[in-house]
C-alpha cells in the first residue's frame, strides 16, 4: 500500500490535526455516484447523499430544497425530496433502500449551501441502508467522471 505509506509521511510532516481527520476519513468512507448526478458517501452502513458539484453548476442558483424526515423508511428510487432553482425543479430519489437517519436542515434554511458546497456542507440526507447489493451497483468516481465527460 504505497499510497497509505506516502500519506502517513505526508500527514505527519505537513498537515494539521483537523486536516488529518479529513484525509483519514477518505480511507474508510467510499464515495459513490449515480448517473443522475448524486453522490453517496458510504460509511459504516450509512449513505450520506447530496447532488454533485456538476449538477449544482448545471442547475444554477438553488432557491428551494425539501429533504426527507428522519425516521422515514425509503425504497430505492423513491422520491424523497426536491431541489429547485429559479427555473427548474429536480426530484431527489433515494439511491438506497433503508431508513432516513438524518436530514440537513441547514440547506433548507440556506439553499445557497448547495451551490457553495454541493459535495460537503450541502449534503441532503443520510440513509441507513439495508442492501449492500444496491451499494455495489452505484457508480464509482471514474465511471461518473466518464459519464459527465461524455455529456460534453
Amino acid at each position, binding site marked *: 500500500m504505497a499510497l497509505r505509506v506516502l500519506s502517513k509521511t505526508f500527514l505527519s510532516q505537513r498537515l494539521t490535526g483537523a486536516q488529518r481527520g479529513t484525509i483519514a476519513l477518505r480511507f474508510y468512507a467510499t464515495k459513490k455516484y449515480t448517473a443522475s448526478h448524486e453522490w453517496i458517501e458510504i460509511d459504516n452502513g450509512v449513505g450520506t447523499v447530496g447532488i454533485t458539484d456538476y449538477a449544482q453548476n448545471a442547475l*444554477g442558483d438553488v432557491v428551494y430544497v*425539501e429533504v426527507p424526515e428522519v425516521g422515514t423508511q425509503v425504497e430505492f428510487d423513491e422520491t424523497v425530496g426536491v431541489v*429547485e432553482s*429559479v*427555473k427548474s425543479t429536480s426530484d431527489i430519489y433515494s439511491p438506497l433502500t433503508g431508513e432516513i437517519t438524518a436530514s440537513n436542515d441547514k440547506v433548507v434554511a440556506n439553499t445557497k449551501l448547495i451551490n457553495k458546497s454541493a459535495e460537503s456542507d450541502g449534503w441532503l440526507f443520510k440513509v441507513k441502508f439495508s442492501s449492500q447489493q444496491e451499494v455495489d451497483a452505484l457508480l464509482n468516481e471514474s465511471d461518473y467522471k466518464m459519464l459527465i465527460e461524455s*455529456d460534453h
Partner: protein
Amino acid sequence: MAAIRAARTLQLLRPAGAQLMSTGVSQRTALYELHKLHGAKFGPFAGWDMPLVYADQGALDSHLHTRQHASIFDVSHMLQTRIVGKDRHRFLEHLVVADLKELPVGGATLSLFTNVSGGIEDDTIITQQNDSLYVVSNAGCADKDLAHLLSHVKIFQDAGADVDVLKIDDHSLIALQGPSSQKALEQLAAVSLSQMPFMTGKFIDIKGVPCHVARSGYTGEDGFELSIPTSEVASITQALLENKEVKLAGLGARDSLRLEAGLCLYGSDIDSTTTPMEANLVWTVGKRRRAEGGFIGADVILAQIANKSGIRRRVGLVIEGAPARAHTKILSAEGDEIGEVTSGVPAPSLGKNIAMAYVRKGFNKQGTKLKVKVRNRIQDATVVKMPFVPAGYHKI
C-alpha cells in the same frame, strides 16, 4: 435515484449547446462570440443557441442586477418585420386587434395576432413609423408568423392593395433593461432621452450608427429595445458594457423578470386556444376595433367581450410552501379542480412564490383563496393583482 431526471432539465445539464453544435441545426446570433467571451452557458431556444447565464453571475444575480441597475439581453432571435405600402394599416389590422390608424407616429403598442377561433397566434409589439409599421414578434413563432404575414399579404396584393411585408435580416436586436438604462444609452447616443415616453420608438444614432430605439421591454423596468445594424451590434454592446452598471443577462433571468412583471410568455401563458378575454388582454383590442371588428376571429372575440364570456381567466397567484410550476393543478377551497398554473417561479425580487394561471371564471377575483397541488401536497394560494412587482416604466 435521479435528481435531474426530467427531460427539460436534462437540457440544462448539456453544457454550451454542444449537442446542437454537432448537429449543426441551431442558429447563432451575431453576439455569440461575445457571449462566449463572458462565459455564457448556452441552451437551445426556438432553434437558436441562446445564452442562459454568464460565468460571473447566475440567473438570480442577473435578475436582481436588472431590477437595480441594467442588463443587456440578446433578443436577436426575435422576428423583426416591416410592413410597407399605403394600405399597410388596413392589411395589418386584418391580422391584429390594435387600432393602428389611431397610433401616432413614434407610438408603439402590444398587440395580438388572432385566429378564426378567437385564439391568440402570437403577441407582438407594433411601432408606427413614418413610412411603415415595425413589427417585432416571438422567436418561437417566427416561422409561423412570417408565413401568416406572407400568405395574407399575397391575398391583399392579389386584390390590388399596395402593401408588402419585409423581413428585417440585417439588424440585430438587444434589450437594455433596468433603471440605469437611460443613462447608459445617453452616454453613447449623445442625446437626452428623458423626454422619450415609454412605448415609443424612433431612430437615434448610437456611436454614430443609426439604430431604431424603442422604449419598451419585457422585464417591468424602464428600458430600450435597440435594433442595430448587425455589423455594429457587437461593438455597440461592448460599448454599453463599459458602463459598470451594465451587465449581460440571459434567458434564465428574462423569464423570472417578465413573470414578476405579469407579462405573458407565448406558448405558456397564452396560445392558439386562449382568447383575449380569457387571457385578460382585452385592453389590447382598440376601441374602434371593438365597434368595427374586421380582424380574424373578431366574431368570437367581440362576442366574448360583450358577454364577458369564455370559461376561464388568466390570474396571478401567490403560493405558500413549495413553488408551483407550469401544469400544477389548482383547486377551489372546496377541493374541485378549477384550473392550472401556466408559469411559476420563486420570485427573486419578492422572496415568495408567484405564478400565472388559468382558473374557471368566477374564481378570478383578487383575494380569492385557492389551493394548488404540488407533488400530491395541497398548498394555499391567493389570487392577486398583477404585476407582482410594481412597474418601473419611464414617466415624463
